[in-house]
């Protein structure tokens, strides 16, 4: 029966050889099964050792296992074991080998099915070029590497001669996903003088409240510190859907007795798991936070010593000018000679007398005044009224942010605001999380400033489990990368995408190319779907304004369809690289588990080769090697990184990393990193360094050296934002752009993150598609939808003057009214060649422009500051 069935059904099998008996043979076979030198015996043996050794099929092929890291820019950086058989990665499973067991296992549905994308229909197998421009109907054709690279080099030289190097725009995803291969591209960009669009702003962006308040990029808690919080206030971060590998740390905090309070207009998975869900009106977070601050101040629940020592709130502000008063301007006082560069010495009042607050160290007399009004005699002979910033804050809160007023704005009952304020002031440590989606509004920075106020006046900074975090991307460079990123004679320039779309502004601090933009070179990214201005990109290619597009990727994205040169790169199980994330403390390798299919090659080779072909003189800065030696070159770059990467990676060797994840060092003696530890415990001035920028390069953002809640830059004063204030949605944006939008477009259009995609990654993953029936959806509150005559399941069109997108309508009862939600990341092929991003307008907030840092920080892209209407598809 058995034999009969086996034959009839065509099954061929035999006793499978078990692992233990084949220890010796498999180590050799697994290496031999791959191209010579493609997997180092060291990494293979170690992975085998970790997983038990390899199994072998009856066909004599070995099942080998390699420890690598999933790296799609989701902040996970999850250790994975790739099982390879017959040259292909067959399965993936979490490595679960982190030293801190709380991080095990780390991964999600997307990353663990990544192998389905490595060999699918969309995999780029050959270089391609388009010799006749797109606008003239030219088509991509497969070609050799020589043809592709020579064609690319020629076109780049032509454009450089015609318009200048800075007319070539560059867009790539954040560096810490793969410091080495992407780092090669960064090295080329820094060599060439092409204009770098900060990769940060395509999917997320630096929450501007961080440089405004603390002078630095985010200093967030690594997720294992969440379990140390006794209270978590989460403002709109749907962690249980968008930070899957970290979400259990919130659960753990609850299991340990901590409380999680979730503020969101919408009932999400995270709401369902919270101890309390606070349903607040969209965009009202700032008002709620300021009303909570008022309760804390009124009831003297704030940490007075902390406020005096670390913040700018004791410093005197001239009430006539709105400016802080520098010591050098005050009669009888002088600017101390040791006042650091980019800093100013300011004054406060002690015993009724103005004194200079030490500009070199975070300290203040305990008797320094926080309240009151004072007459200060200036050197000019003039006497002016001055108040501590704290007094101005108090007056602002008294006037505009009573709990009752906040209730009117937010829909949150005043008694709830008061109760939560008392909880926040008394339960410690408390951690505040601001969702990336929540800050991606025109005035998202004001939310962050108001929430920072809560974290700071309660003294929840510099303590384990306390602080404020905004998790928006794997942006954070965690060791010094200059040894590879920066060539000798670097010629780097950068400007935000915003100016590419809108043209230069009078208030910009970034440079702008003299002849505008005429080419786009992109890698590891899909801007023709995922960027908020994807339709602008498309139109400029169609019109010929953008004369040349080059992309490097491993999948055939929408961007590939617009490219003139397509360079097929490696997926992250096909090369070695190194990566880090802000969410955990481990530096890890991506390791090569299989050779790339077809002609795909490691990017270190691609961009080294391209550099030499563009300009032989650049070749001196790039290694010359055949593609099969890519792993060797990568290892050399890695070794140099570890040698020169600074304190955080000091002492770590390549061999250590081949063995598994290695925890990076941090400043504080505790097991887990504590943000701002140096500032709070060693009284070092703010800000801490923001890699990859040089130390001190952002000092001027907080001239007091303190946590700044009062901003006296002219632009803040002009916009009435010297202190955090609530501003209503759309008034400065959609309604200002088109007053008729107030009537025409009643819904707030939100493009939230999906369970099934990371940005536009995984869009064509067959398993993710199956889970969604292959259909993009539009979510609405059932009452809103019914009022529009739309039934559940209808195909609807979401639209405004700028664009449109279609989807299947889902009634979502937990949604706050007047919202229309689409999940980002669908490639154009799934949305009838339109894009969810066509509706969005890249508004520029002039305050954000102050904080531009080349290739790093841009004015925020306010994805959610967008209005729309909805109708049945085809009902136009």
């Amino acid at each position: 029966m058995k034999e009969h069935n086996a034959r009839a059904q065509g099954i061929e099998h035999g006793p499978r050889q078990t692992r233990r008996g084949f220890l010796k043979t498999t180590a050799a076979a697994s290496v031999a099964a791959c191209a010579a030198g493609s997997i180092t015996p060291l990494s293979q043996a170690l992975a085998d050792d970790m997983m038990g050794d390899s199994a072998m099929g009856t066909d004599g092929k070995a099942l080998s296992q390699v420890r690598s890291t999933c790296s799609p820019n989701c902040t996970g950086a999850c250790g994975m074991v790739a099982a390879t058989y017959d040259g292909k990665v067959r399965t993936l499973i979490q490595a679960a080998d982190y030293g801190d067991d709380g991080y095990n296992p780390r991964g999600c549905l997307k990353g663990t099915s990544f192998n389905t994308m490595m060999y699918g229909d969309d995999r780029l197998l050959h270089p391609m070029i388009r010799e006749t421009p797109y606008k003239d109907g030219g088509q991509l054709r497969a070609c050799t590497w020589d043809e592709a690279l020579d064609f690319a080099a020629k076109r780049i030289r032509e454009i450089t001669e015609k318009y200048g190097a800075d007319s070539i725009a560059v867009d790539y995803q954040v560096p810490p996903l793969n410091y080495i291969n992407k780092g090669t591209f960064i090295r080329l960009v820094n060599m060439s003088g092409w204009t770098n669009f900060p990769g940060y702003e395509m999917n997320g962006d630096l929450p501007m409240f961080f440089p405004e308040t603390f002078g630095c990029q985010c200093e967030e808690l690594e997720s294992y510190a969440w379990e140390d919080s006794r209270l978590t206030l989460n403002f709109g971060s749907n962690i249980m859907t968008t930070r899957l590998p970290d979400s259990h740390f919130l659960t753990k905090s609850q299991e340990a007795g901590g409380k999680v309070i979730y503020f969101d207009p919408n009932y999400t998975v995270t709401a369902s798991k919270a101890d309390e869900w606070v349903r607040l009106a969209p965009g009202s977070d700032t008002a709620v936070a300021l009303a909570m601050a008022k309760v804390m101040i009124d009831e003297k629940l704030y940490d007075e010593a902390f406020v005096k020592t670390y913040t700018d709130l004791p410093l005197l502000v001239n009430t006539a000018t709105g400016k802080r008063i520098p010591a050098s301007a005050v009669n009888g006082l002088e600017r101390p000679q040791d006042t650091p560069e980019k800093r100013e010495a300011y004054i406060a009042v002690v015993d009724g007398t103005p004194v200079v607050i030490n500009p070199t160290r975070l300290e203040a007399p305990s008797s320094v005044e926080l309240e009151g009004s004072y007459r200060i005699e200036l050197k000019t002979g003039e006497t002016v009224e001055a108040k501590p910033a704290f007094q101005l804050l108090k007056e602002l809160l008294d006037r505009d942010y009573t709990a009752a007023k906040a209730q009117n704005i937010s829909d949150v009952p005043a008694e709830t605001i008061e109760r939560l304020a008392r909880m926040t002031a008394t339960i410690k440590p408390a951690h505040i999380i601001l969702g990336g989606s929540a800050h991606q509004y025109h005035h998202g920075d004001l939310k962050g400033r108001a929430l920072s106020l809560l974290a700071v006046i309660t003294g929840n900074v510099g303590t384990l489990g306390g602080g404020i975090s905004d998790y928006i991307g794997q942006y954070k460079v965690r060791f010094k990368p200059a040894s590879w990123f920066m060539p000798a004679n670097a010629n780097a320039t950068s400007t935000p995408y915003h100016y590419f779309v809108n043209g230069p502004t009078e208030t910009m601090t970034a440079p702008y190319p003299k002849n505008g933009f005429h080419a786009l070179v992109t890698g590891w990214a899909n801007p023709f779907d995922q960027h908020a201005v994807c339709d602008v990109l498309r139109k400029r290619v169609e019109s010929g304004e953008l004369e040349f597009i080059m992309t490097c990727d491993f999948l055939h994205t929408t961007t590939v369809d617009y490219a003139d040169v397509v360079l097929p790169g490696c997926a992250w199980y096909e090369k070695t690289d190194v990566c880090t994330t802000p969410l955990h403390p481990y530096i890890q390798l991506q390791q090569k588990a299989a050779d790339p299919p077809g002609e795909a090659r490691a990017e270190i080779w691609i961009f080294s080769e391209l550099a030499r072909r563009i300009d032989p003189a650049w070749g001196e800065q790039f290694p010359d090697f055949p593609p099969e030696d890519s792993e060797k070159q990568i290892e050399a770059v890695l070794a140099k990184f570890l040698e020169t990467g600074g304190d955080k990676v000091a002492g770590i060797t390549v061999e250590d990393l081949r063995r598994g994840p290695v925890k990076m060092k941090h400043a504080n003696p505790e097991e887990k990193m504590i943000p701002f530890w140096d500032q709070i415990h060693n009284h070092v001035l703010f800000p801490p360094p923001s890699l990859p920028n040089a130390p001190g390069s952002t000092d001027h953002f907080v001239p007091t050296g303190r946590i700044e809640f009062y901003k006296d830059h002219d632009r803040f004063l002009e916009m009435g934002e010297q202190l955090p204030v609530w501003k209503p949605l759309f008034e400065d944006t959609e309604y200002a752009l088109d007053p008729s939008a107030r009537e025409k477009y009643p819904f707030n259009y939100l493009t939230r993150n999906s369970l099934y995609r990371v940005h536009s990654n995984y869009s064509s993953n067959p398993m993710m598609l199956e889970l969604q029936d292959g259909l993009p959806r539009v979510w609405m509150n059932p009452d809103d939808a019914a009022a529009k005559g739309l039934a559940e399941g209808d195909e609807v069109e979401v639209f405004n003057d700028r664009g449109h997108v279609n989807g299947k309508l889902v009634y979502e009862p937990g949604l706050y009214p007047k919202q229309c939600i689409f999940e980002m990341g669908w490639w154009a092929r799934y949305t009838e060649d339109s894009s969810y991003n066509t509706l969005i307008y890249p508004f520029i907030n002039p305050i954000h422009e102050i904080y531009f840092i080349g290739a790093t920080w841009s004015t925020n892209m306010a994805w959610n500051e967008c209005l729309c209407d909805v109708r049945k598809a085809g009902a136009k």
Partner: protein
Amino acid sequence: MKLGMAIDLDRCIGCRTCMVVCKNHNAQPEGIWWNRVFTIGSDEHQVATGTRGAGYEMAFMPVSCQHCENASCVKVCPTGASYTADDGTVLVDYERCIGCRYCLAACPYGVRQFNWEDPAKTKGVDEDRYCYGYPLDSLDEGRLVYTRDRPQGVAEKCTFCHQYRVEGEKPACVRGCPANARIFGDLDDPNSDVSRYLDGRPTSRLREELGNDPKVLYVQAGAKQKPQLVYGEGM
């Protein structure tokens, strides 16, 4: 030995990683999911039920083979293809299965699925389409209980990842759950991970009234004060 699984519904966040890991490691073709995670009461995953006035609810229910002690599927199988192994797991011998589908009708949990088409063709494995599935066969006492390309016309379902258990590893869904919601082991061994986890916790089982005696136990929503889960210990 009685292998079983606890699923903590407080910890489950409905992320469906277990579904996908299961499908990937067990080579399930399009349309077949041995393991499914539902949002209770909602056709759309992760969409709450309820109203503003009455309050909202969103709870998740992962469902796969319950590995019943008293398994309906085993009773109705005319060929002995469905059987209970010595470790208590309910398995299907693909070489004995004649595709009668009595087991699909008998299973009260609807977890058995049927390969109507040639799965290898459906998946496009080795045809430069996508590529997945543990590639080697797995045998239980000579019976073929896992093979990547199941023959057309057999019933299939969760095996608690036989192919991994024989190597001393846990099922893929347990290793894959980022929420630490799945705990696996020998229910007969008081020191196993699963027994220690379940000790003192209120649990429920699906359709208990039928008397199938499932070995998948759901830790009830609302149970707090759980002990620290140690990941990586033996079964």
